[in-house]
């Protein structure tokens, strides 16, 4: 069912050209780097090293987002995602989300530390008037100050939990997103601790998404970078459900143009064009981060991620990507 849409390596056998090419099957998820690389926090695992002083990518204006939303309609984009940096540092963020909810479902990835009552009141009202969900994803990397703050900064656990509490008060069901900075074998124990802490803080049906860390940006300094053999090879694509890869169904708009995925924006080869149409070209999955995406699948969407289990057919949540109708 899979692999059929993936081109093999080019005939020139340099390591670079051996990367499998992954075509975009359909632009399901359109991302916006809406706050550039500006963040009020400086997390030491951030894969694009966002901070209060990182201006390498700039904010997107409401007008720019509006133009891209219009551009997305004929392409049939399914959902819109907003990330940064911290999206709510963009003073037009609430207007941007209100506008987006007229086009489709919206998800915003926030650290939860700068939320304001007036913003949440307006957003809750916009979602009520829309047929679409507004998902709030709040990044918290541990279930206590002791486990979270060494990664995200002093006092950030308590501040983020206050954000969660505010969101719940306005009727949101935030998805708590945690990067797996613990050994994978401890997943169950950590998830149970998260659930217990969130419940005791008044969030009675907590939703969680666990992400693998990406060994780039600040995380490369915190732990290690990718080894040369941590790459997707053409052989690895045999029998693999290519729809697990973010680049197969997503693109991201930054102030420089349209890039292949939210993870690789700092890589020069990630910039695919000025328009969404131009960005619909295959991408060579040659990066170490592509290897993590391959291993865990569905990395950026709202579902949780665990490595695909062996022995089961790999057909993932989101999409096509092989043509179901033509199978029979």
């Amino acid at each position: 069912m899979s692999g059929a849409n993936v081109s093999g390596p080019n005939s020139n056998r340099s390591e670079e050209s051996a990367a499998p090419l992954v075509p975009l099957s359909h632009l399901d998820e359109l991302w916006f780097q809406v706050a550039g690389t500006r963040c009020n926090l400086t997390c030491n695992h951030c894969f694009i090293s966002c901070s209060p002083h990182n201006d390498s990518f700039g904010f997107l204006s409401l007008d720019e987002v509006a133009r891209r939303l219009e551009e997305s309609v004929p392409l049939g984009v399914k959902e819109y995602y907003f990330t940064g940096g911290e999206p709510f540092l963009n003073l037009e963020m609430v207007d941007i989300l209100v506008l987006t909810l007229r086009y489709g479902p919206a998800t915003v990835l926030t650290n939860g530390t700068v939320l304001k009552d007036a913003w949440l009141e307006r957003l809750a009202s916009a979602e009520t008037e829309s047929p679409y969900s507004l998902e709030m994803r709040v990044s918290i990397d541990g279930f206590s100050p002791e486990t979270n703050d060494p990664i995200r900064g002093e006092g950030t656990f308590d501040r983020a939990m206050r954000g969660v509490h505010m969101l719940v008060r306005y009727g949101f069901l935030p998805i708590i997103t945690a990067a797996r900075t613990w050994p994978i074998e401890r997943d169950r124990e950590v998830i149970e601790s998260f659930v217990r802490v969130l419940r005791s803080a008044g969030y009675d049906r907590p939703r969680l998404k666990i992400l693998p860390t990406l060994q780039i940006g600040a995380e490369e300094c915190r732990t290690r970078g990718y080894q040369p053999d941590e790459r997707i090879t053409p052989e690895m694509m045999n029998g693999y459900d290519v729809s697990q890869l973010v680049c197969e169904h997503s693109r991201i708009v930054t102030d420089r143009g349209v890039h292949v995925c939210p993870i690789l924006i700092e890589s020069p080869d990630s910039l695919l064009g000025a328009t969404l149409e131009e960005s619909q070209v295959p991408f060579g999955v040659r990066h170490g981060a592509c290897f993590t995406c391959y291993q865990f699948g569905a990395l950026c969407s709202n579902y949780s991620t665990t490595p695909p289990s062996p022995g089961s057919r790999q057909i993932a949540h989101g999409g096509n990507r092989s043509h179901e109708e033509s199978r029979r």
Partner: protein
Amino acid sequence: MNRIACLGGIYSNYLALEVALRDARRRGVDAIYCLGDMGAFGPHPDRVFPLLNEYNVVCLQGNYDDSIGNALDNCQCGYTDPRDNYFAQLSYDYTLAHTSECNRRLLRDLPRSLRVELGPLRVLLCHGSPRKVNEFVWESTSSTHFLDVLARQRGVDVVACTHTGIKWHRPLGEGRHWVNVGALGRPENDGSTDVWYSLLEYSAADGFRAEFVPVTYNYERLAQEMREQSLPEEFVETILTGWWTTCLEILPAMERRRGKY
């Protein structure tokens, strides 16, 4: 054809299936279609097949049918929450063990999609989406232009699917429509014990019309049989209360908020 009944997500609920089929026949529909997932969740999976046969129901293959038919390891719903996976696996192992080889062969050979005509309208019937059998197409996470592009790419006026377990209908551009026909197997997380199927109709006067039909059935008997079969009490609670207790991870915010858990 001008009027068809579409049902799906039976999940072994043969009691609701019988009520729905009798109701559809009474209404004089031209044909009855099942959009897949015969087994799961409920008791005695083999009991749905004689009914589907008796009422000449044309069936499609859902992800569960593919798994049971081919004896795969799991139901291919793609849950990642450990609790959801635990319950999904209990249900899957029970259903696989209690589906006869004859019925498994039948499930293996079902088509994935079907094109039918409803008056002048071209209708595509499928399980999850036209592009993937286990794609969750939720009302609140699918833009109208996304649905419209999927319908246009396939050259159809109406797409009918099931899989998510919650019915909905959205008119698209230029007279096209997307319909989730609902599920007969379990209530749709709204606190009611009723389950749902759909009537799709065309008339020159009104054009296309989708009607959702509530199915009131003997849910207490189903609950009792589930307990007799040692199926999880969490599943029984859903049948008795109308609230989902498992597989909640996949629900988007808006659909999740409507439920109790």
